């Protein structure tokens, strides 16, 4: 097979396959309905984790989980699947408030994970995430733990 023919066959083949996957519903992105779904997705990969609290973003594509051992969990919608990451206490990614809205920007410093901008409907969730990722525990989680 000559090079021009090979290039043509490969380009046409990729375009055809990707187009047909798309028109048959392959571009549907996972949207988590609630915290329970986010927790289930997280536990599928981290069976031993004890989840204390789940904070789901506005669009349902990300969730942050506070764990009983002080660690942090993330569930990130990745196409029709989810990426579930777990960080030990104090070893999580860096977060900073967004400059133009009620959001938190999270930098993973990992080539395989994009920086995420998380927007929460509940300002307490946003503050809890920012606090947890800056090294402190979420204020209302501390209260909860003390009560327990």
């Amino acid at each position, binding site marked *: *097979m000559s090079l021009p023919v*090979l290039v043509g*066959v*490969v380009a046409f*083949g*990729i375009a*055809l*396959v*990707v187009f*047909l*996957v*798309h028109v*048959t519903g*392959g*571009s549907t992105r996972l949207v988590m309905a609630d915290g329970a779904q986010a927790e289930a997705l997280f536990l*599928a*990969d981290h*069976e*031993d984790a004890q989840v204390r609290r789940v904070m789901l973003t506005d669009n349902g594509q990300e969730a942050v989980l506070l764990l009983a051992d002080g660690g942090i969990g993330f569930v*990130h919608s*990745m*196409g*029709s*699947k989810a*990426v*579930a*990451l777990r960080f*030990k206490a104090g070893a999580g990614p860096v977060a900073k408030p967004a400059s133009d809205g009620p959001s938190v920007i999270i930098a993973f410093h*990992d*080539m*395989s*994970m*994009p920086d995420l901008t998380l927007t929460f409907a509940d300002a307490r969730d946003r503050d809890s995430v920012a606090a947890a990722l800056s090294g402190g525990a979420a204020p209302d989680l501390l209260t909860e733990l003390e009560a327990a």
Partner: protein
Amino acid sequence: MDLGAVIPNYPDVTQVAIPFFIIAILAELYVLKRAHDQRKAGFETRDTLTSLLMGTGNVVAGLLTGFVAYAFLMWVWQFRVYDFGFSWWAVLLCFVLDDLRYYWYHRIAHRSRWVWAEHINHHSSQHYNLSTALRQSWTGTFTGMFVLRAPLALIGFHPVLLAFVGGLNLVYQFWIHTEAIGKMPRWFEAVFNTPSHHRVHHATNARYLDANYAGTLIVWDRMFGSFVEERAEDMPRYGLVKNIGTFNPIKVAFHEWWAMLADASRPGLTVRQRLGYLFMPPGWSHDGSRDDTARIKANYVARHPDQAGMPGLPARPMVEPGE
């Protein structure tokens, strides 16, 4: 002597197979869509595009760097102790021995981070379909694992023949990347690598980690103790122990190289620890803060004692040093 008259003009089988690959992927898409089985990972648009671009990049990388391995093997070939030639039985024997070479290459690729850094991208999809088969490495030559073919050249298989049977092996492995086929007949499952055996290899379930390294013949796994049967009650979940959050082919190809080099160049480590990050199994860390597959399996058994000693799992949970 006219070498052209002696050495067969073998085709590049992976290039010849490209139209077949496309037709087969479309057929699999059709079958999976008709089945409406939500338990199967199916196709995802960007994931499929990434896999196909990785496959294209693999062909380009082969064109750009393949001469390194070929030149090395031609150099080794001059020291051969015998010449098997190109008869049909020489091709068959070469295929079987090269399949054994592939088994050990593949096992090393999962057990040493240096080679895992190039192989990880093949496992980076959470889907398992025929496009996943084409999600191939761009940096294979860089690991130097082509030296594993040297013994075959030394005993008398020409590098052209080694390239040909290596291509045949990769083409064989294409069709086993599917959930559209359940089990093959028992005799076939006993001898050959199949979709069922290879689903196990791509799974992240604790019992399935580091299992079924075979290329074409599953008998190597049975011989060397790495075979694990697929179990209906533990459906494979595909991808990586720590999945990636990107469809960018450049990042897919290089993220583990980057992470590995970042680990090895951390300040304050000894030379031995730096080498550990380069060559020890994935998940190894100098301070034991990460989980390798042995610990993942042991932790699983600790949570599920009834599973202790089952294929792919240790007989008892790991005892940490000092306990």
